[in-house]
């Protein structure tokens, strides 16, 4: 492209601008600064006012600024520069042949050059009620006025959309005294700018301020009363009252005019590096354009576009190459910054720093020694520095170790190459562990006194024993004092954390951590969203710690538990309906046989636990087969889960000539008490009617051997790879006692074992005496543990198959779509 050569008319060229917004006016300013003589400018604006700073509408709504404060160019600017402003009169058509534009009022204006800067239109989700009075968008001053009018009456505001704009609207309305609910479709607020961890911190902070934030909330309809908006209905059936509804779900480039005029438009108006459209007499700039495939919704890129536009329009083309953007949330008291690509990945190095006590989360992403992304929450002072490094694509290997600590530290001289230097430089009375008030001197003397591992330091001087945020500092001191002699601490839960399973379990309770991102934040996880080892473990620990409160995270479950069936080597599933105590009926057998036929089971197998397993079921058919089995009265056998699997029984006193007690009946009662419970690992029970032990109760996690005088209770058996016979736990006289001890033992195991540790290795690790002490030292312990178990069971005994059969999580079983290539295409592909 070459410069726009002046048109030799002998008079200034006529430049008409459509759009009196941020980009349109900035472009004019830039052109005037370069050559104030060349153009005679006319600006059309749909809004009946002068040019103002749209970004500042948020502070206007929040009451922090008045409209006058946010005007960029007052009426004088237009007159001083001989610009004709035609405001409140939108342009409705462009005639490219005649080179004229026509506005709504009928006014027609000729142009030599046309500049389209129409910005974007708020996206309105097409739900019933979207046009009701009281439903507003957040785009211009009129919208703000509507919101302010509503806020004066108080009441409820619902903001649909938890992105930048929605949250700023919610903040403003809350400050104006409204009761605000934010509905966000995605599970993470501002998911395009924030990762899960930062999104979670933001959500907690907004909730602390009194807003209600519903994530995963899909709007079904906007409700009406007396011709005005009255509420919002979600797809899950929930109704939320509303006196005003703000739609802030996104924007799309305003391209209607350009399309009508026959310019090339995709998502936005297509422009080249000089902001020229497909018609060389027409330029476009701002949110309405698409440049090198990108559309932008922030001002920084617009400024860059305007500069290159002005360069081209005044004969010195420079060329715009696209922008990297960064985001800040303008909600007072919340510091949040994100820039670049923060999605990470294995070819990227993810450096995460979490400081729970100060509410900080920082994450920088380095790829091939260059910074490619950053997310900062709580302290954004270094945002600009990171953004600058990112834009310049500078090699950061020299400051790699200190990068996460920010500019002051990273640039602070030679010390930065040695990660321990900072710790070494601390004075002896510097506090290392805030929770326990331990100074550097105290830690050092503990180490000198013989503590040569993190664990030893923790237990001897308590540094890093509470929240653990100082673990890195303590390790630094250990490394300085002992060099290579540092002994490894106990096995950590996984490589994402320094904490052991026991520490994590303890801290979840002590610090009342109730969500996975919260645990990761508070316990200083070093990865943004964990790994395949820690996610399922944390999900279980939280579920166990907070029954009825914690919401299960199915993304953190292994496929079998997510699909409620066993995945087999060919990717099909097997399905095991529950048969209480191993007892079935002709009707159940018929239903199982019918299901096997109907869904093409390729094998029906009696399992080791006395149940029937149907193999070869496809994931699409699972909800249907479950519906059929449910209809015949059967529920999921949980044969897939880290959960109670089966209670195996023998026939006992009812039929067997040796039987001493009703082992089948007790087995059924036991299974009815324990089914559905999630455990650290799979859990099996058996009840035998006499010491002949036909149900093989002595190789189960919990086994009952009925004897004349009562019940012998056994624990910790394992028939798996490492065969282990049970230990005798105790003997009790009645069925009820047997059930209570069973519940108590299970709860002790649930509360203490590490995730993926079966009872046998658990008991070998902690010792049978520890288990006995936990159950029997305190005469009330069995009752307390059993009560806790039953309480959690009140939430868990809910057949997952029934919920799936009713359509819950249907998408897990469905394909996205199916691709059927057309025959011609198939031929082409083959050629």
């Amino acid at each position, binding site marked *: 492209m070459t410069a726009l050569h002046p048109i030799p008319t002998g008079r200034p060229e006529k430049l008409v601008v459509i759009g009196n917004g941020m980009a349109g006016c900035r472009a004019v300013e830039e052109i005037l600064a370069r050559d104030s003589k060349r153009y005679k400018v006319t600006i059309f604006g749909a809004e009946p006012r002068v040019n103002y700073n749209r970004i500042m509408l948020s502070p206007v709504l929040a009451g922090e600024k008045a409209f006058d404060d946010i005007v960029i160019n007052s009426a004088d600017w237009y007159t001083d520069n001989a610009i004709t402003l035609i405001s409140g009169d939108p342009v409705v058509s462009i005639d490219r042949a005649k080179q004229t534009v026509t506005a709504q009022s009928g006014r027609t204006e000729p142009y030599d050059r046309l500049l389209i800067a129409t910005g974007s239109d708020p996206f309105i989700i097409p739900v019933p009620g979207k046009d009701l009075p009281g439903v507003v968008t957040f785009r211009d001053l009129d919208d703000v006025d509507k919101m302010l009018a509503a806020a004066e009456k108080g009441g409820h505001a619902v903001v649909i959309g938890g992105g930048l704009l929605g949250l700023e609207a919610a903040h403003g309305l809350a400050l104006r005294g409204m009761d605000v609910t934010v509905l966000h479709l995605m599970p993470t607020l501002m998911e395009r700018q924030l*990762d899960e961890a930062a999104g979670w911190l933001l959500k907690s902070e907004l909730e602390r301020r009194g807003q209600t934030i519903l994530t995963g909330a899909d709007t079904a309809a906007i409700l009406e009363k007396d011709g005005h908006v009255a509420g919002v209905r979600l797809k899950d059936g929930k109704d939320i009252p509303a006196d005003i509804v703000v739609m802030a779900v*996104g924007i799309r480039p305003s391209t209607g005019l350009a399309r009508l005029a026959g310019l090339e438009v995709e998502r936005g108006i297509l422009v080249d590096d000089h902001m020229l459209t497909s018609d060389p007499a027409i330029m476009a700039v701002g949110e309405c354009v698409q440049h090198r495939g990108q559309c932008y919704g922030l001002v920084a890129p617009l400024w860059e576009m305007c500069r290159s536009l002005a360069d081209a329009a005044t004969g010195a083309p420079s060329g715009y190459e696209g922008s990297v953007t960064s985001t800040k949330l303008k909600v007072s008291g919340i510091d949040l910054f994100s820039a670049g690509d923060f999605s990470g*990945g294995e070819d990227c190095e993810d450096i995460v720093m979490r400081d729970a006590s100060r509410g900080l989360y920082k994450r920088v992403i380095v790829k091939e020694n260059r910074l490619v992304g950053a997310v900062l929450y709580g302290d954004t002072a270094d945002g600009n520095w990171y953004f600058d490094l990112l834009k310049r694509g500078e090699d950061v290997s020299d400051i790699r170790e200190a990068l996460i600590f920010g500019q002051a530290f990273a640039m602070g001289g030679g010390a930065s190459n040695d990660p321990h230097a900072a710790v070494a430089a601390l004075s002896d009375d510097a506090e290392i562990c805030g929770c326990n008030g331990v100074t550097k001197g105290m830690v050092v003397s503990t180490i000198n006194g013989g503590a040569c591992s993190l664990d030893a330091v923790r237990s001897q001087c308590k540094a890093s024993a509470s929240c653990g945020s100082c673990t890195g500092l303590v390790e630094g001191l250990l490394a300085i004092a002992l060099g290579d002699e540092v002994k490894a601490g106990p096995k950590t839960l996984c490589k994402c954390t320094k904490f052991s399973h026991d520490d994590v379990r303890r801290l979840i309770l002590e610090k009342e951590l109730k969500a996975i991102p919260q645990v990761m934040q508070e316990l200083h996880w070093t990865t943004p969203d964990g790994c395949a080892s820690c996610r399922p473990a944390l999900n279980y620990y939280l579920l166990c710690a907070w029954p009825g409160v914690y919401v299960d995270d199915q993304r953190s*479950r*292994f496929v079998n538990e997510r699909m409620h069936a066993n*995945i087999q080597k060919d990717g099909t599933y097997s399905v095991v309906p529950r048969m209480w105590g191993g007892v079935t009926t002709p009707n159940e057998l018929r239903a199982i046989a019918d299901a096997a036929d109907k869904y093409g089971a390729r094998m029906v197998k009696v399992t080791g636990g006395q149940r029937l397993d149907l193999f070869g079921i496809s994931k699409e058919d699972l909800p249907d087969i479950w519906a059929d089995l449910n209809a015949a009265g059967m529920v999921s056998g949980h044969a897939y889960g880290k959960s109670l699997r089966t209670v195996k029984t023998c026939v006992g006193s009812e039929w067997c000539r040796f039987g001493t007690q009703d082992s089948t009946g007790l087995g059924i009662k036991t299974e009815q008490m324990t089914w559905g419970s999630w455990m650290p690992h799979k859990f099996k029970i058996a009840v035998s009617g006499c010491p002949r032990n036909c149900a093989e109760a002595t190789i189960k996690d919990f086994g009952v051997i009925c004897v004349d005088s009562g019940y012998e209770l056994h624990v910790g058996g394992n028939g798996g790879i490492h065969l282990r016979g049970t230990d005798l736990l105790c003997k009790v006289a009645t069925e009820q006692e047997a059930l209570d001890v069973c519940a108590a033992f299970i709860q002790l195991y649930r509360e203490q074992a590490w995730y993926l540790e079966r009872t046998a290795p658990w008991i070998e690790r902690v010792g049978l005496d520890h288990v006995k002490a936990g159950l029997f030292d305190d005469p009330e312990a069995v009752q307390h543990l059993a009560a806790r178990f039953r309480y959690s069971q009140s939430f868990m005994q809910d057949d997952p198959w029934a919920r799936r059969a009713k359509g819950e999580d249907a998408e897990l079983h469905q*394909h996205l779509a199916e691709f059927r*290539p057309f025959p011609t295409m198939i031929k*082409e592909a083959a050629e």
Partner: protein
Amino acid sequence: MIGDWLDIGPVTQISPGNARTLPVQGGEEIAIFHTMGGEFFALVNKCPHKHGPLSQGIVHGTVVTCPLHSWNISLKTGHALGDDKGCVPTVPLKVDAGRLYLLREAVIGAMAPERAA
């Protein structure tokens, strides 16, 4: 331009941390992933180890852990990570105006040649 890409629907049909599948008639099923960080990726739904359905694994970062034997597969490159060796074909994917597109050529390329003929 549009013709080269296959529109497979809105981004909202896959929530972050989850994956969904696209069977290809006469070809390999494709798994489409949405990471917790908000990115989308598409791979042939077949683990390089013993063909486990990757779509059913746990997603963390830009990695999926295969549900069968826990190999970690990069969603970006399709390569097995760590000590494991192997690679699964990736399918170029782009997100535009809230919709997901797969490169048509790569989808067709995922078809077995004898079936495609």
